[in-house]
């Protein structure tokens, strides 16, 4: 993997030169800007995108980024969904990350997935595993271009179910066992790092190794229902240092570049988490939600970050290429540069979704700024922060058994 760094550029917001290190083999194809700048400026089509098929879900996870639970009556029909697949295939989107809610709840789930694969669009879907029985596992095992990611947020049932609901750990483990028994091959286990499971990462890794599965650890963001559970679940500052070190020590664990907001922790030792520190929202990825709304990413389901709808004239391609929001996001320095300290080139100012849903301006520090620059602001804004524009939560008590 070659990681490139941009030449010295100037932020139009702060007029401060952002100095980036130039490693020995910096590629310079004449006339072509460095790769990172190409990506920030947006691609002609997404590399991949997240597509939430339904807001319906049998679970009620406390941190659900899509606030899922009840199906939306305006959900895309089967015909519309298949048309979206065709549109993505025409754009040559390489693969789609299908999610929800729980995508397998849709009766046409296999129709949609089969159609995507037949059009050479890869599918990776995120699931709580509840519906992966032996038959489904065998069906998946026979499919090409398919990747499965099982969500699990605790090594043991007590830790996991406190966040995802009673019985959810068992259902996820059963799904994994079924996939293994069906010789599916390497699936992914995805954990959102929280205050309560960060000490379990080693155990998690062993579990993944036992299954021959790939472990993925990602950042908790205050999005969806996460707005309200964030204060209870977010990592403490010592835990941030702990996970920063753990990720460095486990380069074979996927993170989706979701922890670059912690890179200031590596300034003294000259270490940085692998990855481009690149926010792909509206530039190389986006979200299509169950009713066809297109958002910059799955963590900003809010009107401020909605670019259009696939039902609009011109479909998805028109939204991707012509929407005001995405064009704005592709402008250099569009979000502004955090000037709280000198570590901006290491942390990139963090995540705009995290800032938005904690009431911090987009050119301010990330709420989880590892150096604590946001601690006061987060405390001050707590209780008066924005909430998602879509809330399909069911009025269900955590602890109740998952139902259809």
């Amino acid at each position, binding site marked *: *993997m*070659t*990681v*490139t760094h941009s*030449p*010295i*550029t*100037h932020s*139009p917001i702060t007029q401060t030169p952002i100095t980036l290190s130039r490693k020995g*083999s910096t*590629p*310079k*194809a*004449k006339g072509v*800007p460095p*790769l990172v700048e190409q*990506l920030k400026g947006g691609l002609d089509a997404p*590399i*991949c995108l*997240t597509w939430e098929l339904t807001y319906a879900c049998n679970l009620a996870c406390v941190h659900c980024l899509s606030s899922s639970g009840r199906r939306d009556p305006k959900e895309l029909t089967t015909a519309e969904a298949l048309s979206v697949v065709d549109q993505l295939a025409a754009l040559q989107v390489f693969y789609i*990350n299908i999610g929800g809610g729980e995508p397998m709840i849709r009766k046409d789930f296999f129709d949609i997935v089969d159609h995507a694969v037949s059009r050479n669009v890869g599918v*990776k879907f995120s699931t709580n595993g509840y519906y992966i029985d032996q038959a489904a596992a065998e069906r998946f095992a026979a499919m090409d271009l398919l990747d499965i990611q099982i969500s699990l947020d605790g090594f043991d049932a007590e830790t996991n179910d406190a966040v995802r609901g009673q019985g959810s750990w068992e259902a996820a483990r059963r799904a994994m066992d079924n996939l293994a028994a069906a010789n599916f091959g390497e699936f992914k286990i995805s954990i959102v790092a929280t205050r309560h499971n960060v000490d379990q990462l080693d155990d998690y890794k062993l579990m993944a190794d036992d299954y021959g599965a790939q472990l*993925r650890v*990602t950042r908790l963001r205050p999005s969806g229902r996460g707005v309200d559970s964030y204060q209870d679940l977010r990592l403490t500052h010592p835990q941030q240092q702990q996970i920063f070190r753990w990720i460095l020590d486990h380069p074979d664990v*996927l*993170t*989706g*570049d*979701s922890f*670059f907001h912690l890179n200031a922790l590596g300034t003294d030792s000259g270490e940085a988490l*692998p*990855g*481009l520190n*690149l*926010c*792909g*929202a509206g530039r*190389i*990825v*986006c979200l299509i939600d169950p009713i066809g709304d297109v958002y910059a*990413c799955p963590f900003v389901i809010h009107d401020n970050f909605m670019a259009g709808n696939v039902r609009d004239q011109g479909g998805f391609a028109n939204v991707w290429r012509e929407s005001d929001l995405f064009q704005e996001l592709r402008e*250099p320095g569009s979000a502004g540069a955090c000037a709280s300290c000198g570590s901006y080139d290491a942390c990139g100012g963090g*995540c705009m979704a995290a800032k938005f849903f904690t009431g911090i301006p987009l050119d301010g520090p990330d709420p989880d700024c590892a150096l604590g620059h946001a601690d006061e602001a987060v405390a001050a804004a707590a209780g008066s922060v924005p909430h998602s524009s879509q809330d399909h939560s069911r009025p269900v008590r955590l602890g109740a058994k998952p139902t259809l």
Partner: protein
Amino acid sequence: MEPKTDPEVSDAVDDTLVEEELLVEEISIDGMCGVY
């Protein structure tokens, strides 16, 4: 737009750089937020 200093700097060592000119660049699928 922003001044890019690389092309100016590279003039003096043009031959070497063209030799090292890389037309292919790989990126980790795990290296960009939103791609997973």
